[in-house]
């Protein structure tokens, strides 16, 4: 049936669209702010009111990736002319790039970013896979004291993590796991595991056990049934859980700040530490933040179909 709308419905529709636009603007404003600052000339970064129209430049990103020092005398014109375009931008800012021989020295950002990726991805994989297996066990088998176990698992989330930060730090120092990748991976996996178990249990409970039973009767082992039937059916839940775990690990700041300082430091404690030489260089910080936002955005975007699809697309009659 074609939808014929009454004038009233039309007005309601337009109001709804207007409301959505307003809400979208409110939510996107900080992201726009970060994004625009990342491309601003330094002088325009802190103007009041904020500058909206400007000539975008990539200087903040050049600064973000290079190690620099302040110039103590003006650069020689010959050297300035010979420099590549990006180095000129740095000279323009009254700084020069540090080199070892001919090689440009990179800033700490790429390493920190890589650390963040390694730690967040690994801990997400661990938390989701362990959580899925645990949830499957709780969902499908009789576990003695099931309710108590589940409550115990949840209770690990009840204490604000910062409360245990100092003891954790001391323990980590004793076993030599401060400033190691594995240290943060274990920490973040432990953070996320309880959440992962609970979320996955909800999703797996939704999958009728007849699906596996059909596979069992049809000649498959429990393990095969799990991989061939349960995992594909739980894909939606796994995707959602993974996104949440990844965001938590990716954005974690307090423990990363305390537990790491160089080798295994992640991006969140690093970015604000890059105040630059002289006054705080907000454009470089914005550039670092802007790049830092991308992985979560991309990850979520890639999984959007799974996240949006309801669980009840199956052909089960209840």
């Amino acid at each position, binding site marked *: 049936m074609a939808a014929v709308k009454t004038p009233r419905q039309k007005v309601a529709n337009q109001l709804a669209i207007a409301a959505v636009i307003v809400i979208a603007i409110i939510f996107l404003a900080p992201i726009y702010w970060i994004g625009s600052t990342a491309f601003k000339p330094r002088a325009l970064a802190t103007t009041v009111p904020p500058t909206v129209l400007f000539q975008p430049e990539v200087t903040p990103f050049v600064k973000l990736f290079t190690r620099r020092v302040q110039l103590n005398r003006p650069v020689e014109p010959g050297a300035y002319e010979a420099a590549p375009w990006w180095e000129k931008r740095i000279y323009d800012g009254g700084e020069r790039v540090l080199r070892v021989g001919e090689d440009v020295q990179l800033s700490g950002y790429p390493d920190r970013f890589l650390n963040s990726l390694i730690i967040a991805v690994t801990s997400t994989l661990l938390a989701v896979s362990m959580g899925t297996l645990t949830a499957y066990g709780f969902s499908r088998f009789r576990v003695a004291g099931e309710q108590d176990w589940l409550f115990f698992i949840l209770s690990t989330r009840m204490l604000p993590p910062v409360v245990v930060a100092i003891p954790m730090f001391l323990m980590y120092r004793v076993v030599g796991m401060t400033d190691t990748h594995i240290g943060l991976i274990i920490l973040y996996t432990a953070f996320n595991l309880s959440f992962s178990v609970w979320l996955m249990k909800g999703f797996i409970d939704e999958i009728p056990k*007849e699906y596996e039973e059909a596979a*069992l*009767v049809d*000649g498959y082992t429990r393990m095969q049934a799990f991989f061939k039937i349960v995992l594909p059916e739980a894909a939606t839940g796994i995707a959602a859980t993974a996104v949440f775990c990844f965001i938590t690990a990716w954005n974690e700041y307090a423990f990363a700040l305390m537990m790491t300082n160089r080798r295994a430091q992640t991006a969140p404690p690093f970015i604000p530490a890059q105040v630059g030489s002289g006054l705080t260089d907000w454009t470089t910080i914005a550039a670092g933040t802007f790049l830092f936002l991308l992985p979560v955005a991309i990850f979520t975007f890639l999984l959007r179909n799974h996240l949006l699809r309801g669980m009840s*697309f*199956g*052909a089960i009659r*209840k």
Partner: protein
Amino acid sequence: MTHIELRGVQKFFGEVQVIKDMNLVIEDNEFIVMLGPSGCGKTTTLRAVAGLETIDEGDILIDGKVVQHLKAADRDIAFVFQSFSLYPHMTVYENIAFPLRATRQSKAEVDRAVRQVADVLRIAPLLKRRPSALSGGDMQRVAIGRALVRSPKALLMDEPIGALDAKLREEMRTEIKRLHMKQGSTTIYVTHDQVEAMALADRIVIMNDGVLQQVGTPDDVYTHPANLFVAQFVGSPVMNVAEAHVAETASEARVVMPGAAEGFVFPRTLLGRLEAGGAKGDGLALGIRPEGVLVERERREGYLPVEAHIIEPLGSHDIIDLKVGTQMLRARTKAGFVPRPGEKVWVRIDPAQAHFFDAESGRSFGVRL
């Protein structure tokens, strides 16, 4: 060639006994229907045979081999769930092929088997679809296809068409019957719909409360119900059951219902037959199906005058509630035979259709005149 046997099977869920000493022999190619009210243990029995549920006592034998310790995967039995349980992430083709992928068959063999089953079930055009794009009837065909594709030793079906609407159920009933006649595999089919049971079964197994009540052909359980439960569970409308006692006159026996001035006329042989069946005189229950209550508009020899209480017109016929003494008897008449409630009519009970039960235990005395 598959032959299934249950010997003294018992099953507990915690303290609750769900199957009580079940003994049953199912012959090769037989179509067995398990019939019983909700919660009587049909599904549990079926799952125990399939290996999805353990048993606490007794043996389950398939082809003479004890199997209760075998995993479901090793019993070579197919199961159709009430919920169909088609895998949503696979196409119809993949769903049907799934059981074959557990075996070491080549791609070409699998393909041939899937297409053959699809042809038999008339779902060939649907093979590329996802289950979510199927109608209820088609889902059910696919579920049966998935069960049949690897030619299992036996096919177990748990209310496979219970979720369909009435019209489709009737259609699928015929389909399942056709399929069984064509494929001929040992089948156990669970339902709580007695019409379905009568239509499909070679033999019906009637259960109540975990106890096997009667096993027999549809005709058997209909005409010779072993007890009151079976008598009232099978047949629609439900069989009338009324307390009664038998009085004797010089030439005949009279079956008198409480509060009634006169009794229904029965041949004198009834007395001897009842005694032979073990009846003690009192505590007798008369069972008579509505079609065995004969109704006339005018006075006739051997008929008792009664009043019509409620008339339910059902199109092809009417069901009339008649007050006899303090009890009600339901009779089946031609449509419009008795025009109004309150009308006086004449009734008789057809002795050939009467059943007699022990009112206490429900056991039938096995008396058929």
